[in-house]
């Protein structure tokens, strides 16, 4: 595996694979987008991005090997998360920004002391995932990154229910900033 570095990064961003076979993606472009997002979120950590180009699914996850600014953040993305849905197998910078933005904000949250007890991504329940996604995408939208609120509202409703109380909780999470993990869950369940 060869790494691709980008000078545009606040830290060092590497992407694997460096060349894609199944999709028309560019590792340098991906590295630049992640670096740009990391700079906007004030994340100084080294970041390693791993793309699974063999599946059109769109699962994302993040992990850290520590808690400080030197900890490496690893982002996992299935190729569908970065895809232009009108032109399958082609890259969409907008979708990449939304996808990487979402999990970079999660990584940013994980560096906070009040997220110390958050489970690893694989151990999160579907409800916990949805609540955290709502909280992250709301912040992304306020940073000017394109996000379809109704899409995320539907995702949230699918996990918490289709009623006015759930919608009010969604609106509160979407508008929130500076929450700890316990507050994210409490807001979603309010």
């Amino acid at each position, binding site marked *: 595996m060869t790494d691709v570095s980008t000078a545009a990064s606040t830290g060092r961003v590497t992407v*694997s*694979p460096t060349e894609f*076979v*199944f*999709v028309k993606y560019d590792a340098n472009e991906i590295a630049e987008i992640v670096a740009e997002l990391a700079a906007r979120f004030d994340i100084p950590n080294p970041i390693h991005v*791993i*793309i*699974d*180009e*063999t*599946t*059109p*699914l*769109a*699962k994302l996850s993040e992990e850290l090997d520590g808690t400080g600014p030197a900890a490496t953040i690893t982002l996992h993305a299935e*190729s569908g998360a970065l895809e232009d*849905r*009108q*032109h*399958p*197998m082609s890259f969409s910078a907008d979708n990449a920004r939304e996808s990487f933005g979402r999990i970079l904000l999660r990584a940013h949250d994980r560096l906070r002391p009040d997220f110390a007890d958050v489970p690893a991504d694989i151990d999160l329940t*579907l409800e916990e*995932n949805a609540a955290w996604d709502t909280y992250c995408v709301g912040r992304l939208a306020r940073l000017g990154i394109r996000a*379809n*609120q*109704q*899409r*995320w*509202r*539907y*995702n949230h*409703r*699918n996990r918490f*229910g*289709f009623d006015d109380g759930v919608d009010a909780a969604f609106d509160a999470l979407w508008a929130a900033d500076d929450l700890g993990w316990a507050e994210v869950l409490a807001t979603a369940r309010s």
Partner: protein
Amino acid sequence: MRQFFPVEDLARDERFVQTNMAERMKDGRTAIELKESSAKSRGATKRLTPERHDASDAARGLMHGIMVGEIQALEGAGRTAHDFAAGDGTNDTIPFELKLDMARQAWDEARHVEISAKLSDWMGTELGEFAENTVLFEAACSNDPILRLAGVNRALEGLAIDVFTQMKEFGDVAGDPYLEFCEDWMLADEVTHVKMGSDWLRKVTANDPDRRTKALEFQQVVDKLFSFGGARGESPESSFSLAKRFRELAGFTDDEVQTISEMDAEALAERRAAVLAYREKVGADAPA
């Protein structure tokens, strides 16, 4: 008014981007497990249920596919009502009552397009957000009206029965009142459309067994295509299953349902083999 409209000339505004089956099959990626034994061991299922981690996005994608499918079904039924002169069913004519049924179907499909567009909006999808596969309309381009009945009313609308049944269940389990209600009502229409195809196919070919055989062979080809490489089937790798009970209500015999089920399994195996061959060719594998 122009007759026999080619798929390339379908009218769409700038929001829509079209693709076809040949393009889709060039995609060497797959969500299916490539080793048959590993699917169970991983405990994974691709069935479209709320338990999937990507449930809402998968449902949005399928809903958009339904919406463009309804547009093409409207176009297909409308073309069949218009393209053939009224007659006794021979020499490229169709009975006038069949034209009326096609007109009624076009009206139903127009309503379904509106419902599906509103459901897409409700689910957070923009019209045209996903590529439109024109394979459904292509099944409605035959010069023989009986092949159109086999391709559109039996294969395409049969697929709609399967998909709507899955989406109705999804809405029911997720607690989405609009999705469950709308899919249930559209499903009732689709059963009627398939029944119309089954009845007319038998009636018009009553004295022409060769034509009936050709139509049923054509239907099998289209049915296999509409399995989308095993997306429909009984395997946990398939997104939706064959809605056997509703297909029986729509006039499919037990043997016909069994044949489609076997073709779905074949399509999945063929897709698996094709992906493995492609991966071997490019020397690629999933990351560890």
